[in-house]
């Protein structure tokens, strides 16, 4: 099912605090979106709106032209996987799979059980007795096996060890290839998960500051290193994100698409030009100091 999610002028206000401010974005089937932002940036607020957990203060979300909030047809087609407090949950993981199967028409029980085997999740144990990592595994299994056209994982990896997270990432990619949908991965593990993303959504202080395919975004981040005066000459007129100086050597991170000719010109000055990682871009684009200066 091809679906198109339109987010228009979306804002959320909690009393005095504006958690989201005029967010506009379009999401398409078959893409994995990496949602990144600092603590309190508004990631979970945005995801809560997409999952109809909350009504926008202003603006709207539509799926294929229909308003999403309280929409009987579309709400069951959105899965929101997030940390859940299971300390009082006496039911077993099996009961949770049954519940998901009952309410999600696309839920694949066989796949869920295969995943339980792969992740080594005990289905007949009360959930409160599972470790935090295994509780997260249960959430992730339900999220993947629901095969909802919109599937959201909000820091779904909490408590998982590195090998378990790797299995999770592998399953996301493989199942997305089999059943393309909109997947949103909200994460703080930027370096670890960036290879999963088709597009990056970066939120800072309630505003969407980046909404781009990851390869295009990465083509905009460069560090230029060399003798200070030549670096200054090279970056003149470019959008600078940060600079570091050690003795006579200077390194400047710029955020701008550089034509090949420009890169060659800089290199001819004896300077080193390197692409920067998403992790570094994220840190600089969301730092509290004055952002980028021409």
């Amino acid at each position, binding site marked *: 099912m091809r679906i198109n999610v339109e987010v228009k002028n979306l804002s959320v206000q909690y009393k005095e605090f504006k958690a989201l401010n005029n967010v506009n974005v379009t999401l398409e089937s078959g893409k994995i979106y990496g949602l990144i932002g600092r603590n309190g940036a508004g990631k979970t607020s945005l995801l809560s709106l997409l999952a109809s957990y909350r009504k926008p203060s202003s603006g709207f979300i539509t799926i294929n032209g229909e308003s999403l909030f*309280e929409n009987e047809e579309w709400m069951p087609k959105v899965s929101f996987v997030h940390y859940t407090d299971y300390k009082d949950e006496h039911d077993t993981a099996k009961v949770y799979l049954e519940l998901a199967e009952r309410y999600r028409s696309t839920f694949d029980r066989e796949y869920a059980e295969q995943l339980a085997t792969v992740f080594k999740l005990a289905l007949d144990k009360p959930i409160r007795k599972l470790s935090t990592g295994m509780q997260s595994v249960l959430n992730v299994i339900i999220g993947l096996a629901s095969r909802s056209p919109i599937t959201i994982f909000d820091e779904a990896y909490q408590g998982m060890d590195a090998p378990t997270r790797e299995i999770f990432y592998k399953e996301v990619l493989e199942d997305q290839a089999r059943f393309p949908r909109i997947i949103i991965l909200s994460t703080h593990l930027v370096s670890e998960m960036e290879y999963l993303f088709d597009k990056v959504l970066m939120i800072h202080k309630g505003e969407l500051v980046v909404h781009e395919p990851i390869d295009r975004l990465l083509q905009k981040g460069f560090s230029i290193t060399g003798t200070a005066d030549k670096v200054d000459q090279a970056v003149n007129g470019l959008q600078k994100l940060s600079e570091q100086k050690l003795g006579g050597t200077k390194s400047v991170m710029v955020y701008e698409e550089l034509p090949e000719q420009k890169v060659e010109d800089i290199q001819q000055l004896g300077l080193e030009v390197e692409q920067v990682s998403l992790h570094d871009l994220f840190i600089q684009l969301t730092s509290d100091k004055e952002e980028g200066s021409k």
Partner: protein
Amino acid sequence: MSKLVQKVTTDLYSIQMKWVAWYLPIVYILYLVVLVFVLEPEIQAMSLLTFTFQTATIFMLVCGILSSFVFLPIYVKHGVTRKTYFQATILSSLALVITIMTITALVTWVFTLFDGSIGIFNNVQLSLLSTADPKWFLTILSYCIVIFIYFLAGWLISLGFYRYGAAGGFGCIAAALVFISVTDLFYNFKTPKPIVGIFPQVTLTSQIGIAIAFSLLIIAVVIAFVHKITKDIAIKVE
């Protein structure tokens, strides 16, 4: 009624009936124990139906409280709209109320067969409500309506806390106390009531028909409040 409303209603009813399967037998045993060992005339006159009704008020209040804290987030998380949850909760709780009172009425009727042969049932009266005939029907109907109001009161209180935090929660407790107290005054239940105890002992009516009519009005008012609170309530990510 949509298929989804039917499904959620059935599920909510089944889950709460599992609690009833524990609750009712315990209450019945407790009734017999109390009847044998507590020799106060007021207790000796109490039928199983009246005894169960009194405990069912608290049972339904608790079911109402759990209804939002437990079921609302689970169902919205599974893509069920608030409207469907709202309709299904009302229907399932009505079914629950009717089931509890019907089963208890049947067992109470079975006990009446032993009047005269088993001493403990000799002084039992069906209820102290001033009902005209048909006494059984009006008693069961009144008890059903009142415990449904207790369910709605619990639901209102928990929704108040869930949506508005402590201040709204206490506001809803105050509103629920008013609804329950007015109901009690209409029916003039002569039972220990900590809530009504704070008000002067007045009786608003001795006519069961009027009491039923006013309690239906109270139900409509509470449901209107609950609808207002649930229709766009935010679900917590926790």
